[in-house]
């Protein structure tokens, strides 16, 4: 119920475009293709106009390729966001039961979580239909994303993804049109890869 209707018109207006990845991103694509599971600690820092100070939270990201993605936020603001198939489940500490959303019945909401998942998994192939992709640096890889549509631009102004030499996602920066910014730093990666 927290995911309010404000984002629906935005995302319903998304018009994905068919794009192919630049050649410089081939190693990243291959690395992602071989990733079976990934888990990492994160520190999220939000710079919001509504707050005088930064809002810092820590937690753990875990996902299985094509399966379940868990975004766990540590106490004191403990919560779990689980994305699995067409269902998004939110569990906040103190709540008697989890809230689940059937994303297939609401395409706009589905797009939001699809984007969130693609960002957190650094899945550029799923992001390129929605964002213009620019390589900031080739090694270690740095990529910036700009929304292709005005509707999406009303929610996100730009996204920057920074990787290490092994194509592990180290940092995500999400800039919003009102000047707010979210930085997420990842560490302690544990990656299970499929054999060649």
């Amino acid at each position: 119920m927290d995911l309010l209707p404000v984002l629906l018109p935005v995302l319903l207006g998304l018009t994905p475009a068919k794009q192919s990845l630049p050649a410089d991103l081939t190693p990243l694509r291959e690395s992602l293709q071989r990733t079976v599971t990934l888990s990492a600690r994160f520190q999220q820092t939000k710079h919001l106009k509504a707050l005088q100070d930064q809002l810092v939270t820590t937690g753990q990201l875990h996902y299985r390729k094509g399966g379940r993605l868990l975004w766990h936020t540590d106490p004191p603001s403990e919560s779990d966001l689980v994305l699995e198939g067409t269902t998004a489940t939110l569990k906040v500490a103190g709540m008697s039961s989890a809230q689940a959303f059937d994303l297939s019945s609401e395409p706009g909401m589905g797009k939001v979580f699809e984007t969130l998942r693609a960002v957190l998994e650094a899945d550029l192939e799923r992001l390129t239909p929605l964002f213009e992709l620019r390589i900031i640096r080739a090694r270690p890889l740095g990529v910036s994303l700009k929304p292709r549509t005005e509707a999406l631009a009303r929610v996100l102004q730009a996204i920057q993804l920074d990787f290490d030499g092994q194509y592990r996602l180290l940092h995500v920066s999400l800039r919003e049109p009102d000047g707010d910014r979210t930085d997420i730093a990842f560490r302690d990666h544990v990656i299970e890869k499929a054999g060649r």
Partner: protein
Amino acid sequence: MGARRGLATLHAWLTSHFAFTLVLSGAILAGGLALASRMSVEQDIGAMLPDGPGSPREAARLLEEFGVLNVLLLDLEIPGASPAELSRAGNDLASRLRSSGAFAEVLAGPTTEEVLAVGRVLFPRRLYLLDDPTSAIEERLSPSKLQASLTGLKAKLAAPQAIVTKGDVLRDPLGLNDELLSSLRGVSSVQSHGGQLLSPDQTHLLLVTVPRASALDTDASAALLRRVESEGARLPAGPGGPARLRAVGGPRFAAESAATVKHDVLVTMLTSIAALVAIFVVRFRSLRLLAVAFVTLAFGIVGGLVAVALVHGRIHALTFAFGSVLIGIAIDYPMYLLNAASVQAGAPLQRMSAGLEESRRSLWLGFITTLMAFALMLLSKFPGLRELALFAGAGIAVAFAATLILVVPIGARWGLQHLSAIPSWMLALGAVRPSPLLAWGTVLAVIAVAAVSIPRLQFDGELRHLDAQRPATLAEYEEVRKRFGLQGTDSLVVARGATVEDALRLSDRVAATLLQAQQRGDVSHVVTLSSFLPSLQSQIARRSRLADLDVTAARATLTGVSGQLGFSEGAFDPFWREVESARSGEIPLVQSEDLANTSLGALVRRLLRCSGSGCIAVTSFEPSRLSAVAELRRELPPETVVIDGGALAADTVAQIPKQLALLSGVGLLLNLLLLAFAYRSFGVSLLACLPGALGLLGTLGILALLHIPLNLVSASALVLILGCGVDYGIFAVQGVTRARRSSGVEFTGVLLTSTTTLAGIGTLALASYRAIQSLGVAVGLGIGISAVVALFVVPNLRGGKKAREAATA
């Protein structure tokens, strides 16, 4: 004398033109059936109750609409499956059921879009939905509450999805949405998970289905259950074992009841036929005479149907079922007649005529006293009882006429040639004479037991207790309801108004009273429109109350505390803009149409209904105790109607057995007077009524002692006990008052008819369908007591001896 001679001439003519007699009888029966077949059959149990605005029938109808009669709940369990897997399986199952065409509705949880739509409609208008928005805001500005809500708000801002929800989060610094959501959670007790309804432990999934066919269409219900079972077999197994799909609710109860009833009817019919065959073979050594006796029953049933067809044009299924049982006692008339004819001498027609002559007076008295009981039922205020009285009374009258007109010629031509005399063992049994002391002791004992226990007799008006619900099925149903937190809706408050607004205004007053009662603990689970669709008047009043809010001071308080917690000064400007918009009326009021396409749409359609005569707004609740309903009636606005299933059963439907017991008592008194007139002796009349009276008292007394409440069906047995008991008494008195007693006709007549009734109806006590069972128990007790009193007590009482002496003299 003229009538008797005319009847004798008719018998002679019908006997000599036997083929014509049979053809005419067949034609009359066929004509009657053709007329009766045009009637519609009513199955609504509420049709038995008085109708009209605010009537018990309307209450029963509303309760049925809000109940689960036609709802089949499907509980899906896939052991070891995750909630997402369970939801997917539930979604697939729902799709297959919808495409099967067997269901009018297959309801899963609200879709995400429908849930979001509620937020789109209600959140911007939340200040109109709070009872007193000014107080709500001021209360939440207290430092402790404000600190808690702002800390929670920070956590929401930290969530990943806050990128898009940030604006809404900041618009609600005081947690007003949480209060609104909390009241909506009371409206919907089932948790929605990904568009499906899951149990709190997320191991079971619920589909609420409404079949296209009525639950009472038992063949369709049985086919539906087979379809569900086959769908269940197609479900994928989970990691912990095979999937399990349980179906509970009205269609299952109806299908199982029908199967039970069919089994009971088959068993009791076979038992009855076997008993009747045995009785006719033992006594008459002829099965042809059994066919003769059945002629009267056929005429009785058809006569009853024609009477109801002519008067009402439709018949209730219960009237036909229980009326037919009552008409069944008409088989006593040909049995008395044939038994009396068997001891006569001469040609068959002479013997039948002599038998009729000998039993004529008692037959007439028995018929009139029985008819009187049904005539009294016609005075009942319950349409169901009046219809039963008309059907059974007309049936008995036609059966009696058939006995007088047809049994003599048919018996003379068809079965009397080889009719044997009364078996010696029956005569020997009739010679058993208990001492007068024992006879009086029996009478006094029955009266004493009745006097002590009858005041404790309970009356059960709960129609569901008559059903054949298997305990295991009922337990499964309750288990499913409990698992998903489904509440019963047996208690409703109906607010009427000329318009939607009028009904909603009244509904708001109802909600205020019920919420106070909820705080006191008198009621729970209040589901009211007022929590999300208050009347326009209430919303405008709340908007006006917002004018009292000192926005400057409130804003300063919020800014002060939020600043200490790290929020910027203008962080909550959108909230204060919303307050100003509400105060100025820029935000439109909530109306029912706004909710049509939200997850609350179905609830609005159910709780708010309009017709040509106006609108009703319904509020449901659960009383914590029965007396709470009576107290609420005093507190609620007088224009409202409180409908409570328990109270309806206790106050209205339970009146039917009470009324039947009372009418039986009055009937007994009238029989006493009639017989006193016929016998010209109050003592003999008392003696004739004694079996019926003791049968009634004994039955009620034993039921009370055994804590078996008298219900709608078992109360019908009282009329039958009265009718049969007085008949037995009349024949017993005939036996002790006439000079020539050696034939034993009266004793064997009562013995045969009571045995027939016990075998035919008393064996229903063995049935598993509770309605039939209760009828069998009551009839078994009443007929048994009446017969024993008529056979062994009446002949040995002082009054009986005196009567015999007087007759001999």
